[in-house]
């Protein structure tokens, strides 16, 4: 249990580090501190900067959060956001992300099957080329090819298409990882022993290989979630989805620095939440995690 607590602690530690880091980086910029800077930037941006980031106030890094919890707007009047809007957009992105995670596992499975084809076969050759094509294709390209068919079509089609596009590359990465892990397990002695004892290949796979491959799969969920998040920025823009990724990009372009600080922390919190879920699942499915730390 202490080992699990340690892992959970490591996940959660990311959030305050990112919150403080992004705040200190933005506050370190010489904006709003001197009279000169008011001529360098639009006055309402400077005003929003000082007001929203609590410049000069003790515990100023809590100011943007304070404003959001009070229902006040963060940023300039025309381009700022309230906490309610932020939550609405986060929930949209989480929905698309959850769908993308499930699709990534599907891609992973499909790719693993392709790669396990007979050496020299067409499927096997494709299994070699597909990672290069997937990792060499920026998300906005397949998004643009698919968007004309689903944008503004309603019925959650744009969200589904965005999830499909975002999940392809991380799914193939996951598939490659899974295939290698499964191959490594299949070559172990205990598998040979189990087969020798008369267990069917299916039973060996289910009872022995899968439980040993699960930890590797769980370890890769974090990086996959990160990759899904990265892909969501471009996909939301191309599919016209008004969710968190698009909000973030617009905030950066409009130099709404307080929103950037808050949104960066929210992303870190989302990823930490994913990590926490992974640890919970690990506790449930991996007896070694449960046993760790016990005398």
């Amino acid at each position, binding site marked *: 249990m202490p080992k699990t607590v340690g892992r959970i602690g490591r996940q959660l530690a990311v959030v305050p580090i990112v919150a403080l880091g992004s705040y200190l980086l933005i506050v370190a910029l010489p904006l709003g501190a001197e009279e000169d800077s008011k001529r360098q930037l639009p006055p309402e941006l400077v005003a929003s900067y000082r007001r929203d980031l609590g410049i000069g106030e003790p515990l100023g890094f809590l100011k943007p959060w304070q404003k959001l919890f009070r229902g006040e707007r963060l940023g300039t009047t025309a381009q700022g956001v309230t906490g309610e809007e932020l939550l609405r957009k986060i929930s949209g992105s989480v929905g698309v992300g959850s769908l993308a995670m499930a699709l990534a596992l599907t891609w992973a499975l499909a790719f693993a099957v392709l790669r396990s084809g007979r050496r020299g076969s067409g499927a096997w050759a494709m299994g070699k080329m597909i990672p290069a094509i997937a990792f060499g294709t920026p998300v906005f390209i397949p998004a643009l090819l698919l968007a004309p068919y689903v944008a503004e079509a309603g019925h959650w089609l744009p969200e589904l298409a965005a999830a499909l596009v975002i999940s392809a590359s991380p799914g193939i990465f996951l598939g490659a990882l899974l295939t290698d892990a499964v191959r490594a397990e299949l070559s172990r002695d205990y598998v040979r022993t189990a087969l020798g004892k008369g267990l069917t290949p299916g039973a060996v796979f289910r009872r022995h290989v899968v439980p040993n491959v699960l930890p590797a799969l769980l370890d890769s969920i974090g990086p996959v979630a990160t990759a899904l998040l990265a892909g969501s920025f471009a996909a939301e823009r191309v599919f*016209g989805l008004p969710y968190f990724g698009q909000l973030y990009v617009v905030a950066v372009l409009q130099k709404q620095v307080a929103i950037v600080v808050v949104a960066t922390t929210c992303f870190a919190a989302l990823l930490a939440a994913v990590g926490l879920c992974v640890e919970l699942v690990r506790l449930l499915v991996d007896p070694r995690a449960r046993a760790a730390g016990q005398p």
Partner: protein
Amino acid sequence: MPTTLDWSRSDPNSWANYPVALATMRGLTTVGPGNEIRPGLAASWDRQCCPGGHEVYTFHLRPEARWSDGATALSAQDFVLGWRRAVQGRERGDMLDLLGAERVLRLLDEGAPAAAVQGAVNSLGVEALDPQTLRVTLASPKNYFLSRIANVYLFFPAPSAVLGGRSEEEIREYFDRPRGGHPMSLGSFRVEDWDRAGERVRLVRNAHSAFSPRPDAGETAAEVLTLLKSEVGSALYDRGRVDFIFVDSPVALQEDRRADLHRQELLSTYFLAFNTERPPLDRVELRRALASSIDRAALLDRLLPSARSATALLPPGLLGAGLPRPMARLSPNAATEIVERAGGADRPLRLVYRAGESFIPEVAIAERIKAQFAAIRVRVELDPRYDFFAEIARTGADGHPAPDMYLRRLGADYAHPKTFFTLFERGGNHHTGWERIDSGKAVERFEALMREGDALPDVALAAPFYARAESILLDEAAVIAPLYHPDRYYRARPRLVGLAVDAFNFLSLGEMRIRKTADFSGREGRR
């Protein structure tokens, strides 16, 4: 997409706000197809010229005009509130016509105390004689004023019954956060929702508007309009998911021309502006050399299906524009000689232009200017900016405007040369520093010529004055170099009756009716 819904306070990127502003509001007057002035929110008006050198208009408002809640009547006080906010807003230079506005702008620029500024604002030449009568006093006679207040949304009213007594922050919140029926409107539509991240605006029909279009038999009014920005606009149009689209992409324009592709020549000019304060561009001979060395035909070659080169700020077809201006092109050798003499090759010059999508092929034009100037030994650094208007307004560490040059489009808001010259007046958002050339004498002569022309009742008679004013700007001070007059392309479903883009680049959403068909989707978009 709009940058603000607060039509009084506005934003320098104002052209993006016009579609929504004109769909939801009206001015005191309207402009007919032949540029004739017609009643708008004012049913009639009287003009008095010129007691004390000022021009006075008394507007009699339509008694039946109601805001979109159906209960609040339009009042003269609504104009007083709106114009007093506009004279302190981000495009306050456009309010200089009014008596007392110059004093307000001067106090604001000097950073005077709020009480002094408020005192000056209260003395502005706009007052409500009674709820139905508005008196407007102009600093001097302006033959364009009635045309101006038709479309320039700074002159639109704001609902004083709702906003009176609120703080400035609350008023901005009222406009920029649509909900619960606000902001109220007077035009054919009302803004119901504005999703900034999603880049879409949802308009709903204003049933209480005195200006709703009257559908003929077989037609109906649009109940809901969604304006949206999309990466795949043309594909959405081809698949019937939107019913109107601006075709701005050069790639799209190179495709086979569709039967429903329309082209509208705009009363608009795209120009290169110079920072007249920072060396070496503080040398007028260098600016003239750069301006006259540009090969405009080569600049626009193969960029658009057709392009109209510009040698004048005032586009052809604009009332009062005068005869076309010939411009002799300076040979590269002669230009190089001047550049070297004036120190134009000493350092790279930063050219700022707007980043993002536009119907102007800015990237190509900027790169060609860079190449053309390189041929005459002037090095140019290109700087595309999403925060373009903030960047050109920014002051550099040396106290001069931040960029050395910038590329910008200026479009007419009404049919008068003043619409182009306002930008370059003292207090205008030109950010070239030209008001300090020759200790301000150049801009004084410019404004004097404007005043003389504006005082004449007939715009055609005033054309020579405007031509001379233009000559100060382009030839004598060489503040800007006009490049071309843009056009706008769009595709629209035939069933959208009354919807068009005019020469002012205004989309006539307020006049739109829908011919009833089985498969109408009721949306329009923008690429």
